């Protein structure tokens, strides 16, 4: 522990800067600490404890129970594991459909309303952005009306001769329904025989339920506007000369979009995908106001399950554990797609046409 003389304080004109820096940032650090860092740490502790909701989680009567809360969820074999598996299944399908669709749709809308020749661009931008600024509770209520058994959506479907489903009361999986149309209504033994997190692989492959599909449509409807705005901002930042150069090189519109515009949007694409992933994994308001997990638990999501475990069942440790598993899942997917979208050196094969043809290879 011999400390060299380098800890000697710097003096002179810049001496007090560090202190005043801390002083200026202190209010924010204290606020963030009080309302963000400490609660998160408390929740982390709760997830490892047997706290049952009475008194402070740091009082003497609360014991450390190790990974008990976590193992009940991922290996307990009971109802808790089954519910957690179901919630993950539902949310995974939700993410799988919502994130790509909303990203593609918002990019498509952004490109449309960014065109110089479009009349009334302001109107369209506002119209597409409107659902994003409306409260999700209001939209959920609207959705419940639109998608009720005798609602507007089913009326519309009946005009084209389709007998619409009873949306928010239909627990059947969309993929199962499609397979059933081809006469496959029971899964192969390999899938029904073995299970993961308390539900069989065949159930994992059920697809989103019809009820969840309505929520998927709603998420796409409400969030596309926000992300469209991000894409518009990015598109307006692109310099025109690159596109002009591509035109001079003879690239058609389709090629210009895929080979010139889209690669330049990579940072925005990352932002949109990350925000989309986080939002989609944390879906809560719609479930809380809309279906409370029903029908048949097919709209149960980890975020809602966490709330339910804590507030209605007094299983606070388990509720906190669900939240932290969800946190790990979100971080994993964010890191994964960061890796997926990372800038890589152009491969030799792609690069070949641009290299000077030196040597004997022609």
């Amino acid at each position, binding site marked *: 522990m011999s400390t060299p003389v380098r800890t000697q304080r710097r003096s002179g004109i810049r001496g007090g800067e560090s202190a005043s820096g801390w002083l200026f940032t202190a209010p924010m650090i204290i606020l963030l600490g009080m309302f963000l860092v400490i609660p998160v740490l408390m929740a982390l502790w709760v997830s490892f404890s047997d706290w049952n909701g009475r008194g402070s989680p740091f009082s003497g009567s609360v014991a450390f129970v190790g990974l008990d809360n976590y193992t009940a969820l991922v290996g307990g074999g009971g109802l808790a594991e*089954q519910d957690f598996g179901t919630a993950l299944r539902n949310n995974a399908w939700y993410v799988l459909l919502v994130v790509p669709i909303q990203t593609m749709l918002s990019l498509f809308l952004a490109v449309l309303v960014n065109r110089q020749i479009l009349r009334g661009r302001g109107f369209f931008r506002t119209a597409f952005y409107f659902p994003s600024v409306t409260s999700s509770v209001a939209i959920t209520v609207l959705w419940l009306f639109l998608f009720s*058994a005798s609602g507007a959506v089913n009326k519309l479907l009946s005009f084209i001769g389709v007998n619409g489903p009873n949306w928010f*009361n239909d627990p059947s999986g969309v993929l199962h329904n499609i397979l059933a149309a081809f006469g496959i209504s029971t899964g192969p033994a390999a899938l029904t025989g073995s299970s993961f997190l308390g539900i069989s692989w065949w159930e994992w492959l059920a697809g989103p339920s019809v009820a969840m599909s309505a929520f998927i449509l709603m998420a796409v409807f409400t969030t596309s506007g926000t992300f469209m705005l991000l894409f518009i901002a990015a598109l307006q930042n692109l310099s025109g000369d690159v596109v002009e150069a591509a035109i001079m090189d003879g690239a058609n519109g389709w090629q210009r979009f895929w080979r010139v515009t889209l690669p330049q949007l990579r940072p925005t694409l990352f932002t949109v995908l990350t925000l989309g992933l986080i939002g989609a994994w944390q879906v809560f308001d719609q479930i809380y106001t809309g279906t409370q*997990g029903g029908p048949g*638990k097919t709209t149960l999501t980890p975020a809602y399950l966490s709330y339910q475990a804590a*507030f209605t069942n007094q299983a606070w440790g388990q509720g906190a554990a669900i939240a932290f598993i969800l946190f790990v899942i979100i971080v994993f997917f964010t890191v994964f797609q960061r890796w997926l979208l990372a800038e890589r050196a152009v491969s030799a094969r792609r690069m070949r046409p641009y290299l000077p043809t030196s040597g004997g290879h022609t």
Partner: protein
Amino acid sequence: MQRRNSRWLIGAGLTVVGALSLSACGSGSGFSSDSANTGGELTSDSTQGLSVLIGSSGDAETAAVNAAVAAWSETSGAEAEVSVASDLNQQLAQGFAAQRPADVFYLSTDALAGYASNGSLLAYGDELANKDDFYPSLINAFTYDGEFYCAPKDFSTLQLLINTDLWAEAGLTDADIPTTWEELASVSTALTTDTRVGLAVGGEYARLGAFMAQAGGSLMNEENTEATANSPENLAGLEYAQTLLNDGVMSYAAEIGAGWGGEAFGKELSAMTIEGNWITGAMTNDFPDVNYTVAELPAGPEGKGTLQFTNCWGIAADSPNQAAALDLVEQLTSTDAQLTFSAEFGPMPSIISAADDWRSANPALVAFLDGAEYARDVPVIQGAADVVSDLNAQLESLKTGDAQQILDSTQQNLDALLP
């Protein structure tokens, strides 16, 4: 660089320590004894007023409770304030965690086990002066681990509601009111038309459980010590419901585009429904033109059966003035107070001494009160609400499902909750 790092660590460490000590202070004494809930002396710190937290069904209920509590304040000289919770579960949980809960509050049978097991509730049932006046089955509903926790506030039972106009239209008379399962099936068939189903029910245990009770079954035994979900009686009840569903004479409310049985009944999507006495409010407000009558549910192979639902007046173990709270609850569950509540916003009194007055005031609804004699309670153990919601999820597909398999999985889930 190193210096900055260590400063960071010290800063972060101080923040954490500071916050921990802050939250430790917040928890009050820090020596919360879990034995506070078991009898002993009641606290009686009369310096603080009582707070009463209710989950109100509307203005009528809020006003009635306010008036009753104000009347108690007047006579006892103690202050009390009523607040209406927007999310009762969440506000209760918050209060218990902070050890500053409301003194007196509404408590559902679902929530009882959770709060009783973590010591948040005062088990005051045995100290009630009017204890013997409560229906025994309601006392049973609020008994957890052998202790009678809280005074039943009021209760409801499920019975059969019949649309009298549609009944007459189908050529049925009062003599046809079903008293057996066979008769229920035949009147349901008679009432079913192309656009209307005979009987609509909510697709959940809280309705279909009545059929199980009529067959002599229930999810758990009276003492909540043993799971009896997959008994042959329960199977008989579910299979009867399954037959009605598959014959097309009974539908789940959701299947015919209604939120609950009462909505299906009010919109005349069904000619009959099985609901509790809360339906009368909805009928008066939303569907005043529908004429209906209430009959007792038909008897099954093991006689009459129905389910009952109830709430109680919980008192917090952490309340500084439990004695006054107990006094308030005795007042709120007295015959006069309960009859006033009943007149103001419609619940059924939880005490036997109010029964006769209630019958003469509500002659059309007598069937609901008659149910008290044979009604079964929903299970009261911690985690049972989860099991029931899982059962509900499975009952949604009862039509095509395997009743035995549904009950077996419920049995397994309930067994897992028992020590």
